[in-house]
């Protein structure tokens, strides 16, 4: 007889998490927190390059303003790109469908 492939641990774990409503909610909340943290890491790195010359004894107000603006514009940029991509996708909708075929 053909041996039945045993499900991987990962898959079992997934099933386990997915069927327990408490864990399900926990994972959702933690994933969201994790996405937030990840973006903070990323933006700190990007804005550090833009805003920091020589690290001084304290974060001066000019740098602080730069960091705040940098974060706001980074998010604006990401939203702008997303919107524009959506728009071009929509106007080229029929075109890309024929491309897919």
């Amino acid at each position, binding site marked *: 007889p053909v041996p039945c492939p045993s499900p991987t641990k990962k898959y079992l*774990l997934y099933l386990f998490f997915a069927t327990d409503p*408490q864990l399900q909610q926990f994972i959702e909340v*933690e994933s969201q927190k994790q996405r937030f*943290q990840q973006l903070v890491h990323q*933006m700190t790195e990007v804005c*550090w390059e833009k805003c920091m010359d020589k690290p*001084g004894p304290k974060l001066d107000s000019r740098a602080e303003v730069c960091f*705040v603006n940098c974060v*706001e514009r980074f*998010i604006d940029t990401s939203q702008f790109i997303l919107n524009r991509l959506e728009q071009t996708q929509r106007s080229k909708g029929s075109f890309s469908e024929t491309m897919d075929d």
Partner: protein
Amino acid sequence: MDGFGSDFSAGASGGKMDTGTIMEQVKVQIAVANAQELLQRMTDKCFKKCIGKPGSSLDNSEQKCIAMCMDRYMDAWNTVSRTYNSRLQRERARM
């Protein structure tokens, strides 16, 4: 990860698995991962800022620079986190 797997099979076969323990373990692992991420990025950035030409040891001025850089990186991280958080709140309020 082995612990996870065996815990799971034990839970499936009989005794109820402690959900709270899993959640605690996951939280600890997430916290460790975040600390590692911060450490790695901070090391990259402060090495770049403070070590012009790597010499035979970390000299005094380099150590001072690294210490200051670490503190400023944390300031920057907190400022970015605060700004992003208030932006999210604003956008949520607008919806």
